[in-house]
């Protein structure tokens, strides 16, 4: 016999995913604006492959279709946004298929995966095509990202980094676009601001510890570059792969920020955030278990 409650909040998983999708659109728009229509093709291929992969999986395993929660759309778009602007189109195809199939469905579907699906897709591509994945040429930009410039001793324009007028991945270059989307997501109650906030704190702290000095421009550059903002706001906050409790999330944020900063000091300028994220993903469930035993 069906039991109460018979009233519920109108928000479903699909509604939440849709809001996340919307919050990614400013970054997508900035990517197309700066790097041209080819970026749209990259994102499009990623989205389509995500859809088809999940559909095929559901059909082959004879499960109920899971497409209506739109999580495939978020994974597809996120993967597209974290790829460099002129990668060959089989990159988003392979990455997206890996993200959906290996990163999510193989684990048992949404909520059961340990690794962020899009991050695992990008990991595959980084392993197979490291050079191409670090080549940020696209549109009118050359191949070297601002952080890579800084690493070899050149200087960069901070304002360009903020607006996204720099070589970067399609959606991770424009701090403004990211923060706009993040603000929308926070105001609609989907984004838990604790994770990005605590990440920021530990990121700056660890950078300072490892000889950061007091040049604010340098810190701002590290924050705006190398996908840190995008990863902190849109990927570390993924529900399924982050802790569920308040204290857990704060700890998770601190760990992510610290790991990312540590990765940067070790020299992984562009990939530090993805590796840091995947590491923290593995720690998310132990954090949950630890917090619960203390409660």
């Amino acid at each position, binding site marked *: *016999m*069906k*039991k*109460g*409650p*018979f*009233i*519920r*909040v109108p*928000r*479903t*998983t699909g*509604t*939440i995913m849709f809001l996340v999708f919307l919050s990614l659109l400013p970054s997508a728009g900035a990517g197309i604006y700066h790097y041209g229509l080819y970026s749209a093709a990259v994102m499009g291929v990623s989205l389509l492959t995500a859809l088809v992969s999940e559909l095929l999986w559901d059909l082959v395993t004879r499960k109920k279709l*899971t497409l209506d*929660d739109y*999580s495939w759309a978020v994974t597809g778009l996120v993967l597209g946004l974290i790829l460099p602007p002129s990668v060959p189109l089989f990159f988003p195809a392979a990455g997206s298929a890996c993200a959906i199939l290996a990163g999510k469905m193989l684990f048992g*579907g*949404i*909520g*059961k995966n340990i690794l962020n699906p899009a991050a695992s897709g990008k990991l595959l591509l980084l392993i197979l095509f490291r050079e191409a994945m670090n080549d940020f040429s696209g549109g009118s930009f050359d191949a070297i990202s601002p952080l890579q410039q800084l690493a070899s001793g050149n200087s960069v324009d901070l304002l360009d980094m903020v607006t996204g007028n720099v070589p970067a991945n399609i959606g991770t270059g424009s701090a403004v676009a990211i923060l706009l989307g993040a603000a929308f997501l926070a105001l609609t109650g989907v984004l838990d601001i604790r994770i990005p906030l605590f990440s920021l704190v530990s990121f700056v702290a660890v950078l300072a510890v490892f000889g950061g000095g007091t040049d604010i421009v340098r810190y701002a550059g590290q924050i705006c570059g190398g996908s840190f903002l995008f990863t902190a706001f849109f990927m570390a906050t993924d*529900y*399924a792969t*982050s*802790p*569920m*409790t*308040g204290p857990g999330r704060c700890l998770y944020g601190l760990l992510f920020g610290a790991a990312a900063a540590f990765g940067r000091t070790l020299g992984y300028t562009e990939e530090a955030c993805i590796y840091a994220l995947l590491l923290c993903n593995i720690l998310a469930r132990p954090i949950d278990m630890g917090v*619960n035993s203390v*409660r």
Partner: protein
Amino acid sequence: MAIQSFHGGTALYDGKEITRDLPVKTVLPRGEMVYPLKQLKGEPASPKVAVGDHVLTGQMIAEAVGQDSAAVHASVSGDVVSIEERTLAGGEKMRCIVVSNDGRYDEIVYPESRHISGLTPQTIIKAVRSAGVVESDSFTLRDGVSTADKLETEHPERIDFLIANCMESAPYMTSDYRRILENPMKVIYGLRILMKMFPKARGILAVDERDREIIRTFRSVLKGETGIYIRRLSGRYPQGEEHLLVHTITDRTVEEGKTAADAGCMVFGVDTLVAINQAVIVHEPMITRLITLSGDAFLKPQNYRVRTGMSIKELIERCGGFAVEPELLVYGDTMTGIPVDDRSVPVTKLTTGLIALRKDRFAKIGESACIRCGSCIRVCPESLNPFLLYRDSFKDTPARFKRHHGMRCISCGLCSFVCPAGVPVADAVDKMKERVLFRTETEKEAEIL
């Protein structure tokens, strides 16, 4: 200044405006009346009448057997048609006394009214017990509690707070609200009677701070009365839950496995206080209920005073029927109630209301996989982890369930309410609580054997 002391909870659409400003209407049934013999955990009541007997309104037709058992009274005059199994609102089949209604409502001769000054605790308990007064148990939503058993607490000298729950947190329900506006003295007298039983106790009227009318009414009738205080609490659901009331008003926690009495408090609903007053002063047994019929499908949503034993089908007809046939008919409120499939089930002493909704908006959403968003954890008023408890319930691991404090759950339903994936958390945890209780009791019985 309103006080709220629990984490979580939520403001929800409470549907009160549909029925709160309409007066209570009395409806007398004409059809057959069905009285279940078992309303509490213990033994069913033992019938005192046989088939063919003529009974009068107010007559005791079954007597309580031991603890957790309550007397049954006829709410109409008529003849006993049968003593047989009938289906009740929860779907279970139970032995009931079925009485045909002769429409005359001839009453038994009631003894002379008592006066409050002459009351002793023994008189009070005896009167409450023989009137068959029962109230709902906030812990498991199905069974009730015998009020007399509750009053016969082991350490009456430790009770220093008698709390009248005037919050009516349940959505759509406005019977308490109307009762207080139309008849506040009965509630106050009920509380006064209990204060005679527990002389150390203060009487507290716990009201929703948004209910200005109620506060005004109480203030005007309490002029010159000492010992009874009004406490205004926030209207966040489920502030009206017993354990939360105790904690908010007295700062004491009800320990797991214990009752409010162990924390020196007793919480009573408005209808229980009125029933106590009626039982003790005028010897009237529990034979009427104030029921809220609400939702958008009824033609005349309102509060109705009805007789126990009346079928839901007749109740709906006599109260004007449906404007539109509802997709969802709920016995109880929309957070903790159960759906009605069989409308021949009777109104009982624990019925609070009937909600008819034209559209079952959430039936279509269905259930999908948990996304680990943590909303259930944030909303739980008892600071539990519904995610873990759901897993413990699903996997049926009672030791883990108890370790995660599953037995502290107050069945408010908020975890299911907020879940975006539609996971039936509250239902699973409820069923697990019942299984754990059942196991504990069979273990105890096994030990005795």
